[in-house]
């Protein structure tokens, strides 16, 4: 009784919150690009937020459920259908045995997350289910999903009583997305170690201009295009630590923003770091989108991260309660 891939997408991988503790061997943490959305999908599906999910890029895979399942979709909106009928994002959905989940077009965002109640029954690698594409390990066989892959699910829900003859049920509660709207689309930054190497003119330009995400953007990093920036003087950086969200200055003056599959160390000047609370916004931008930056204080960065954490706690409490209530009423 499995989840079967009937048509593979362009880059769909199993991800979780990443693997920490191995960067000293050059193994980067990886994990979901948009960890907030991955957690939201899990919580809606009745899982622990950190459970393994499937990260989807468009065109995304089509899935065939060989057993009934409680699922949820979050992150990018790829216009999902179950057996041809549209289903919403951010709701728990019960699907019956032999359902087909498909994705049709990009409505918004860059990466969607599919969580399934109970999680995926796959072996972990170095304490994580995340797919490490370079090492060819972790996730589902260390690679993106392909046609006819079969992923075992951890639990076999007996949802037949609830579903009856229905093909799917959209449960009547939804994760709130308005909690983080503060009227700005700017990505917040903290200054990086080598920011002060920029010439005064470049420092000013760095914040003033907007950048376009180029096609050279993937799970490792985004190349972003703007007027070139220059350092003064041009001193080498001995390879040293970097982080998700680190903005590096490349030779030639263009910038790259490190994403989930970034290398563990880098030798380019670190101009700034996108704050953790805004990683999810960055992860949902795609080539062609423009982005603008704004510096904030460490205190603001931490506050926003705590706020996000509290939002998830509240969501978790509410969803657990609603799901229990629903199951009690229907069984």
């Amino acid at each position, binding site marked *: 009784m499995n989840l079967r891939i009937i048509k593979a997408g362009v880059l769909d991988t199993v991800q979780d919150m990443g693997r920490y503790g191995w960067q*000293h*061997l050059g193994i980067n943490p990886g994990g979901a690009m948009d960890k907030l959305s991955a957690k939201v999908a899990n919580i809606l599906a009745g899982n622990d937020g950190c459970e393994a999910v499937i990260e989807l890029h468009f065109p995304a895979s089509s899935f065939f459920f060989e057993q009934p399942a409680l699922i949820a979709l979050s992150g990018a909106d790829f216009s999902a259908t179950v057996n041809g009928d549209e289903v919403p994002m951010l709701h728990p959905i019960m699907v019956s045995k032999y359902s087909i989940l498909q994705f049709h077009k990009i409505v918004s965002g860059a990466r969607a997350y599919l969580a399934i109640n109970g999680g995926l029954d796959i072996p972990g690698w170095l304490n994580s289910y995340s797919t490490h594409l370079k090492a060819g390990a972790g996730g589902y066989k260390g690679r993106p999903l392909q046609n006819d892959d079969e992923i075992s699910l951890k639990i076999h829900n007996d949802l037949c009583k609830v579903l009856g003859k229905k093909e799917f049920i959209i449960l009547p509660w939804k994760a709130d997305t308005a909690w983080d709207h503060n009227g700005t689309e700017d990505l917040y930054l903290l200054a990086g170690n080598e920011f002060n190497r920029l010439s005064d003119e470049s420092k000013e330009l760095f914040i003033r201009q907007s950048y376009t995400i180029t096609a050279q953007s993937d799970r490792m990093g985004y190349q972003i295009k703007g007027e070139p920036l220059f350092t003064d003087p041009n001193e080498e950086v001995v390879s040293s*630590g970097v982080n998700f969200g680190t903005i590096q200055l490349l030779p030639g003056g263009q910038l790259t923003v490190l994403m989930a599959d970034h290398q563990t160390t880098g030798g380019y000047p670190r101009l700034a770091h996108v704050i953790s609370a805004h990683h999810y916004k960055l992860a949902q931008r795609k080539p062609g989108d423009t982005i603008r930056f704004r510096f904030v204080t460490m205190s603001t960065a931490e506050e926003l991260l705590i706020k996000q954490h509290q939002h998830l706690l509240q969501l978790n409490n509410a969803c657990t309660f609603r799901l229990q209530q629903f199951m009690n009423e229907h069984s």
Partner: protein
Amino acid sequence: MELIPESYHISPLGDSAILVDFGNKIEENINKEVLARTSQLKESLPDVKEVVSAYSSLAIYYDVVKWKKNLPKESVVFDRLKETIEQLLSQPLRVEAQEARQMKIPVCYEPEFAPDIHDLASANNITSEEVVSLHLSKTYRVYMLGFLPGFCYLGQVDEKIGMPRKTQPHPVAPGSVGIAGKQTGIYPLPSPGGWRIIGRTPLKLFDSCADQPALLRAGDNVQFFAITRNDFNDIQNSPILPEGT
């Protein structure tokens, strides 16, 4: 061995990691201090995801939410963590005089595995044979791992075989031994890369199925030895790792 705290600089690496920089230099003594301090901080700091050493700096990845829970509402986790690190770094560190592991790595320098040896030789006005003997003439320290799983940065090569990396990356086969600047290193996996390739080892530097997936670790000493094409074939599929220690 008694380590005296070198001068260091602490700065944020975003809001979830902190960088302790001991001097933006490639020096054995600094790297030793970095490794010792990495172990100290790993053992002493609570709610840390990992502490990762590089050439002359270390990065501490921490859990902001857990740290925040134990602090008064207005205080900033970074400030508190920085104070804690400064306090730990002010303690003189007595490091067990631990012997570095001596690792012997076989390398075949024959032309089919050494696409860049001619360029490197002529750039330095020496012969390919001299490149090989100079590469074999030293024991190298593993300063750090990074770039790819299991990729180790070894230093430093004789300046007569130094050469900057290529401006454009080229596809590199796993096991390839390269030179970039005064560093030498081994590609554990197939990858685009800019290092000048002068040979190839048949050993598996990275094996995701092994308990210790990387063959080398920071602080090891590495001695290369030359092997023939036949030796290369014989060793390539052998599961036995060198006993070097």
